[in-house]
Every structure is written in C-alpha cells, then in structure tokens.
C-alpha cells in the first residue's frame, strides 16, 4: 500500500466494488460485472460518483451493508480549487501553510476536510454533501475545534447540511482510540467505515439528527488492524459554541 509524505497509508481508488451482506453473516464483495450490477440499492457510490474502495479483509465480519469511505492525506499545496475554497473561508482568523497535512474524506453521504491550523491548537474542517449550497460554494459547513493538549473536548457537531433529498446530514469529529484503525458508523441499514489517518480526529457523517435537541447520534464501532472490535459507543453530541 502506498504511503503519502506524512507516512500515512493511503488506499488508492479502486475499481467499482459493492458489498452485499450475506444473510446475517459476513459480507461478500460484488464486483462490476456480477449478476446484480444493475441493482442500484446494493451498488454503493461515494459522493463523487465513484465506487468505494474494497473493504479490507480484516473487516470481513462487519455486519450490515458496509461501505468503505475514501481517505486521502495531502498537503495543503496539493489541494484543488474546491478544497482551497474551504481554506479561504478560515482567513484571516487562521493560517494554513502550504505544507499543512489535510485529510480528505469522501463517503456516501458527505465529504470533509480536516486539518490543524499553523498553531496546531485548533482543528479546522469543512463539510459538504451532494446538495448545492448556492453562493457559499461546495461547502455547507466549516467547523472549528479548540485542541486541549492536542485533544478535542467536543465533537463540533453540525446538523444544518442537507443531502440530495433534503435529509439532514450530521457531521462530527471523533478521536479514535490508540489501537483503532477503522471506525464504523451504523445507521439506516448501512454502515460507513472510516480509516484513521494522519493522527487526526475522524470526521464522521450520520443521518441520525434530532432537530428538537440540535444534536446528532453516531453509532460507532472501532476496530484494530486485525479487525477486532476495540470500542463500541453511541455518541450523542449536541451543537455547541
């Protein structure tokens, strides 16, 4: 597996692959050309229309319709115009030098950028869905989280982004455990899996959003490099600050 400049493993874009859950058991990979190619329900697509990366073998026992989100670790200087539009929205409050490590995540529901500002005391991020946001460009939200001894005290939840059918998409950061290699978020009959990258909190998405309490819920399972579940939690997080 290739490594980026920061030494973080980056899984390359792979050919179309979808996952169908065998009855009550392990997942089976369904590649392009298989008999259910035309089954849109099982043929997962990421926000950018691409097929998700293949699930690693270690996660073969993850229950449900599991989709591995794509993660790229880049330097700010390597970002495209769309991503720079995110960084510009933080000026002049925060400075992001060209060498800043940026984690870009693309899932089925949403995509995000996560980075630290130049002081490394603040975590910055932008979120987007596939619903146009008008004058604000591609990003429907930007988040700022203060780091205390390098850690967040709050997931910095946002609940105002909307998906293609106007459903609410919640975003929030989670700090993975020391052993955690992947985080799975379950919800609405599907599971999105996020690979930990660049020692940064992982920006997750959920459709489990409660307007009345301005909060979002993340049903999480964390797995180590061998696919062993190392933590399970139901994170209810509210909009704050």
């Amino acid at each position, binding site marked *: 597996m290739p490594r980026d400049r920061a030494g973080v493993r980056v899984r390359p874009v792979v050919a179309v692959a979808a996952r169908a859950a065998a009855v009550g058991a392990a997942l089976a990979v369904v590649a392009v050309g298989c008999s259910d190619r035309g089954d849109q329900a099982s043929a997962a697509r990421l926000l950018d229309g691409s097929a998700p990366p293949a699930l690693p073998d270690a996660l073969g026992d993850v229950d449900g319709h599991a989709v591995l989100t794509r993660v790229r670790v880049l330097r700010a200087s390597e970002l495209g115009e769309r991503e720079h539009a995110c960084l510009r929205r*933080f000026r*002049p*409050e*925060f400075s992001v030098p060209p060498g800043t490590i940026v984690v870009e995540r693309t899932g089925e529901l949403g995509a995000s950028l996560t980075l630290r500002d130049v002081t490394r005391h603040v975590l910055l991020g932008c979120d987007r869905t596939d619903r146009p946001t008008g004058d*604000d460009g591609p990003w429907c*939200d*930007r*988040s*700022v989280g*203060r780091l*205390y001894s390098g850690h967040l*005290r*709050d997931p*910095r939840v*946002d*609940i*105002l982004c909307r998906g293609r059918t106007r459903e609410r998409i919640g975003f929030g950061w989670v700090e993975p455990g020391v052993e955690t290699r992947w985080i799975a978020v379950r919800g609405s009959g599907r599971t999105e899996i996020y690979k930990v990258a660049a020692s940064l909190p992982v920006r997750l998405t959920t459709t489990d959003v409660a*307007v*009345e309490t*301005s909060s979002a819920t993340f049903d999480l399972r964390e797995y180590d490099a061998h696919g062993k579940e190392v933590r399970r939690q139901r994170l209810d*997080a*509210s*909009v*704050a*600050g």
Partner: protein
Amino acid sequence: MTALSRTSRIVTAALVVAAALGAASGAWAYHTRFVANNCNTNAPQYTSYFTRDGSITVALYAQYEGYQWAGGCWNDNDVDDSPGDPTEDPNTGGEGGDCSGFTFKVWRESLTESDAQAWQWNKLRFVHGPYTAARFKNGDGAPNVTYGKVGLIRMDALASSSHIGMIYVKNADGTDQIVEAKGEAYGTSVWTRTYRGDSNYGGVRRLGWSA
C-alpha cells in the same frame, strides 16, 4: 515503633480520606445537575412582535448567570449556580448558555433554520439551537444575514468562527459594550469589547425585528 507505625497509619488514612473528599468535590463540580433539576423542554411561544429592546431584556435575565458549553438554560438569581465546570465539556449539566446558544435564545429564533419567525423561549427552557458561532458568522439560517460592521446597531452581533456577542451599546471610541456568554470562568454579562475593529469578527444581523 508500634506507636510510630500507628501514627503513620493514621496519617495515611487521613490523606486517603482527604484525597477521596477532594475527588468527590471535583466530581460534584463536573456534574452540577442544574439542568436536570431546573430546566424544561417546554414548547416556545410564537410572537409576531419582537423588538431589539425586548431582546435586551431577554439577554439581561442571563446576566451574572453561568456559562455552559452547549447549554441554554438559566434562572435569574444573579448567581452562577454551577461554577467551575471544565471548559468546553457539554456534559456537565451546568447553568447558562454558551455564546451561540445565548444568541439563539436572545434573538428568539427557531430550531428549524428555514423559519425566520420569532419564538419566545423561557429562560429555564434548555435549548441551544442549531447554530455555532461559525454558522452565525456565515449568516446561516433564514433569520440571519451577514452585515457590514460599520452599520451594526443595538442587538446586532459580532461573530468570529469561535465566538459571538451582541451589541448592547456602541461606544463613542469605536468599541462596543457586548452582551455575551463569555466563558466558564466569566459567565454571562456585558463587557467592553473591540470586536468591531477585529478582522476575525464579522457583523451579523437578525432579520425581522418589529422595532
């Protein structure tokens, strides 16, 4: 030797008790139960008439009350009933709002961002609202717009990506008296601020005031 040993044991026991008491005190400070014991989830009341002066009255109920990250419930006894909560911990259940929750409630906004109407939230109604300071700064939500700082008036707001405060009085020297939920160590009150001249801050206006 025996007496010395007994003394040593007594001292050790005293230290353990003292440590336990200290820990218990710390635990109490982390979970005040103010919200659990005092706050409600009652429905807000729609109002077709809401003024900037009226919102000042709403804001001043919270003066001298506490500050709670992700909070939005306070009484009006001019005391922080949950002092010393850790910073940015949403689970401490303390009194007060944070900066964006305070603004949401004082501006009498809706939980639904497409709704620009005015809603009265009782001070003991626990509510934060869907906006962060960054959301307010961006003018997100139907009731909110970004606004040039020069033209800001009473009860307009100045927001950065991590804080928001409302203008109580504009001072002649270019500063403002800002009513804001400032932080756990400060609570909620009115302070003189230089946000208007700070490039990190932008102007925000709540639309639809009756007067």
